[in-house]
């Protein structure tokens, strides 16, 4: 059985090997960019089209989620949060395409996503409170907490990575095991469960990113 910790090389350009998750990620990025360009090409205030209404209601939903979770104005965080959600959702749901393995089932993709969240927490924290204010946040409620807060920064990003990887990869793995044991149609319920898990995990990843950034932005407690 193929190890879930390594990914298959599709093609190589000289010394650089392109693995399946990399290709799938780039296809997904291109699809997302093309879709966004297509939908936002004709935005109108008067009599908006169907796609625009759908897009606006989706954005309003995300805005209200950000407002509830982070308790601040959503505008500066909306691009990052929306992109994270759409990318993780698209990556998780791409397991439905036959022969495709979701990019988030490779730990490198999840590591990159968690790294984005890790860096953006620091950037947004410093932008909102200044370097001194952000660093002071590590010493709340007292300086005894400094090592714990520093460790927390790393471990929670690590947990973010492992959570997404474990959930998506185990879904794909279970389908592969069931398919190798039983017939053609038996994995279908597992795939349905996989769709549900994929949507929930995309939501959870986004909400956790919001929570992390929110705690870094707010004054009280890092």
């Amino acid at each position, binding site marked *: 059985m193929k*190890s*879930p*910790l*390594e990914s298959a090389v599709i093609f190589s350009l000289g010394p650089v090997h392109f693995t399946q998750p990399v290709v799938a990620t780039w296809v997904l990025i291109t699809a997302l960019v093309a879709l966004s360009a297509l939908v936002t090409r004709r935005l109108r205030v008067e009599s908006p089209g169907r796609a625009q209404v759908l897009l606006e209601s989706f954005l309003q939903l995300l805005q209200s*989620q950000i407002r*509830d*979770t982070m308790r601040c104005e959503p505008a500066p965080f909306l691009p990052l949060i929306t992109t994270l959600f759409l990318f993780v959702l698209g990556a998780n749901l791409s397991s439905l395409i036959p022969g495709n393995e979701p990019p988030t089932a490779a730990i490198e993709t999840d590591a990159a996503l968690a790294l984005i969240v890790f860096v953006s927490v620091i950037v947004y924290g410093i932008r909102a409170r200044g370097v001194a204010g952000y660093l002071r946040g590590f010493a709340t409620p007292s300086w005894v907490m400094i090592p714990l807060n520093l460790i927390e920064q790393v471990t929670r990003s690590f*947990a973010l990575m*492992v*959570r997404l*990887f*474990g*959930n998506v990869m*185990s879904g794909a793995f279970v389908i592969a095991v069931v398919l190798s044991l039983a017939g053609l149609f038996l994995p279908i319920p597992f795939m349905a469960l996989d769709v549900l898990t994929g949507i*929930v*995990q995309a*939501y*959870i990843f986004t*909400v*956790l990113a919001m*929570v992390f950034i929110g705690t870094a932005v707010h004054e009280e407690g890092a």
Partner: protein
Amino acid sequence: MEVDWIKVVSIASAAFAVAFGAIGPALAEGRAVAGAMDALARQPEASSTISRTLLVGLAMIETTAIYCLVIALLLLFANPFIAK
């Protein structure tokens, strides 16, 4: 026939890690969902806040089970004590 004890012990401990690592999170998630149901029955108007907090809490609890799964996978597929 020579028995490779490292492989035997690795497979057994991978199974043990998943089996016993699933018990704690399962009990904890059951308690969390029961608590959320209780809160929903008392305050149905706070359902959005409760369900969001519940989902995030469940994800946090679930992480311990996922760690066990990753340990099992490392033992099975990336065991440092088995020479390739």
